C-alpha cells in the first residue's frame, strides 16, 4: 500500500499537470509556436535526436569537468582552511566575493581570457559549483566532535592520522551535501557557459547553444525539447552524487539509519 502510493501520487500529479497543459492550450487557443503540446515536444526531440544527444554530450563534458574541478579544488581548499585559521581568514572573504559576483558578469571575462569554447564553459561551471562545496566541506572539517578529537590526542595520533581517520570521515556528510548542491548547479553552469561562450561544429553545439539556435530558427518545440534534455542531464548528475552518498554513508550515517534505529 505504502509502496503503491509512492508511485501513484507523483503519477497523479503528472497527469493533472498534463491535463492543465492541454486544457489551457485548447481553452485559450494557444498556437504551437508559443506553447507546443508535450506530444509535439517529444516528436521534435525525436526528430532532432542526433543533435540533442550530441548537445547533451558536449554540455555534459563541460559540466563534468567543471564539477570535478570544483569538487577537487573545493575539498583541498576546505582542508587547508580548516587547519589554519589564518588561511581561512585570508581566503574566505575573497571566495565569498567571487560567489557574490554573478556568473553572467564573469563569463565574458572568461571568454576574454580563455576564448570561446570548452575552457571558458568549464570555468563558468567551476565558479558556480565551487562555493557550495567549500562552504559545506569547511564546516564539515570543523564539526568533528570534541570528544573524538581528544581521543586522537590521547592516542597520540599524528596530524595526518587525525585528518585521515577523523576529519575526513567526519566531514563526509557535509562534503556530500556540498557535492549534491554542486551537482544540481553543474549542468546549469555548463548551459550558461554554452549560452555565453559556446561554439558550434556543423551547426551542433551544447544545450545552451542549441537553445539560441532553435530560437533563431523558430523551432519552438525543439527549443522546449532542449529544456527536457537539460533536465535529464541534471538528473544524471544528482543521481550520480546520490549514488555516491548512498555508497559512502548508508552503513553508518543518520540520513540512512534514522528509520532503522531501535
Amino acid at each position, binding site marked *: 500500500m505504502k509502496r503503491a502510493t509512492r508511485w501513484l501520487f507523483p503519477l497523479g500529479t503528472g497527469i493533472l499537470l498534463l491535463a492543465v497543459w492541454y486544457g489551457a492550450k485548447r481553452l485559450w487557443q494557444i498556437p504551437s509556436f508559443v506553447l507546443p503540446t508535450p506530444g509535439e515536444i517529444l516528436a521534435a526531440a525525436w526528430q532532432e535526436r542526433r543533435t540533442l544527444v550530441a548537445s547533451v554530450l558536449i554540455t555534459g563534458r563541460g559540466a563534468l569537468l567543471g564539477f570535478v574541478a570544483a569538487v577537487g579544488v573545493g575539498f583541498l581548499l576546505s582542508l587547508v582552511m580548516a587547519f589554519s585559521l589564518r588561511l581561512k581568514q585570508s581566503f574566505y572573504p575573497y571566495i565569498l566575493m567571487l560567489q557574490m559576483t554573478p556568473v553572467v558578469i564573469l563569463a565574458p571575462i572568461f571568454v576574454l581570457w580563455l576564448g570561446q569554447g570548452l575552457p571558458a564553459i568549464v570555468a563558468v561551471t567551476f565558479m558556480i559549483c565551487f562555493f557550495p562545496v567549500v562552504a559545506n566541506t569547511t564546516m564539515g572539517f570543523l564539526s568533528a566532535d570534541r570528544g573524538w578529537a581528544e581521543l586522537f590526542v590521547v592516542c597520540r595520533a599524528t596530524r595526518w592520522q587525525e585528518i585521515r*581517520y577523523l576529519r575526513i570521515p567526519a566531514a563526509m556528510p557535509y562534503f556530500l551535501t556540498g557535492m549534491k548542491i554542486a551537482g544540481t548547479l553543474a549542468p546549469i553552469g555548463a548551459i550558461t557557459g554554452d549560452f555565453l561562450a559556446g561554439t558550434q561544429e556543423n551547426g551542433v553545439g551544447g544545450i545552451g547553444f542549441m537553445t539560441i539556435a532553435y530560437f533563431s530558427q523558430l523551432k519552438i518545440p525543439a527549443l522546449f525539447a532542449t529544456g527536457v534534455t537539460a533536465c535529464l542531464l541534471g538528473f544524471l548528475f544528482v543521481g550520480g552524487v546520490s549514488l555516491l552518498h548512498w555508497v559512502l554513508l548508508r552503513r*553508518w550515517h543518520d540520513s540512512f539509519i534514522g528509520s532503522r534505529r531501535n
Partner: protein
Amino acid sequence: MRGKEGFNNLIMDPGLHVRLAGVGKRFGAGPGVIEEFSLAAAPGEFVSLIGPSGCGKSTLLRLIAGLTPPSAGEISVGGAAPLAGREGVFLIFQDANLLPWRRVAANVELPLMLRGDPAGARHERVRAMLDLVGLPHAAGHYPWQLSGGMRMRVSIARALSVAPRLLLLDEPFGALDEMTRDRLNEDLLAIRERDPFTAFFVTHSVMEAVFLSNRIIVLSANPGRIAREIAVPFSYPRRPELRETPEFLALIAETSHALRSVLPR
C-alpha cells in the same frame, strides 16, 4: 611497553603512581576551577572523585591526562609530568565516544592502529578485548546498532586494548540504567583483577563509588577542593552481594552525608 607484553608484566606492575601537589587550574582570567589540590594515588589504587557539578572533577582528569596544563602546582604521573598521548594512559569518556563510521572491531582497534601495531597482533588483541567485555559477536556491528550499555563496553574494550597502566574514567556509566551500571561495575572490577591499573573514576553515584573504590574523594565546588576522604575497607575481588551488607550500606550513608554537606544550599 606495547601490545601483549602488558599481560606479562602484570604482577610486577600494578599501575602508575599519580601525585598532585598544590594543583590549581583556572581558565583565562576566570575564577579557579580547582585550587590547592593535593592527592596521591598508589600504583593500582582505585580512586573515585565525587562532588557537585562544577567542582572540577572532569578538569582533574584532563589535567592528569595532560590534555590541559595546570595553572599552579605540580602533577606527576609515574614520576613524570603528564603528557597527552603518553603510552599506558587512557581516558574513558562521558559517552562512549565511538566513531560512528567504524565498526565495533575497528573502533577497538583504533588506538593500536594509530600507534602502528602490526595488523595481525591488532586483530588478535581486538578479539581478546571483545571477549573480555562480553561482546564477541558484535565485532561487525556499527555503534548505532548497539544499546548504550553495549556501546560503553566497546569503549572499555578500546581503552583496555592498549593495556593501560592508568585509566581515567569520566562518568562512564552516568547515562545507563542502574542494572546495566551494576553489571558494568562488576565487570570492570573483574577485568582489573586480571589486568591491574591505577584508576581515577569520576561519578555522581555514591553506590558506584563505594562498590568500585579503594578510596573516595568528596569534592566541594567553587573552587574544587577536597572536602573529605573516605577509605573503603572491603577487599577485592568484590562480589555483587557486597551491596546488600550492612557495612556497605553504612559506608553509602557516610558518603552521602559527606556529599550533602558540600552541596550548595
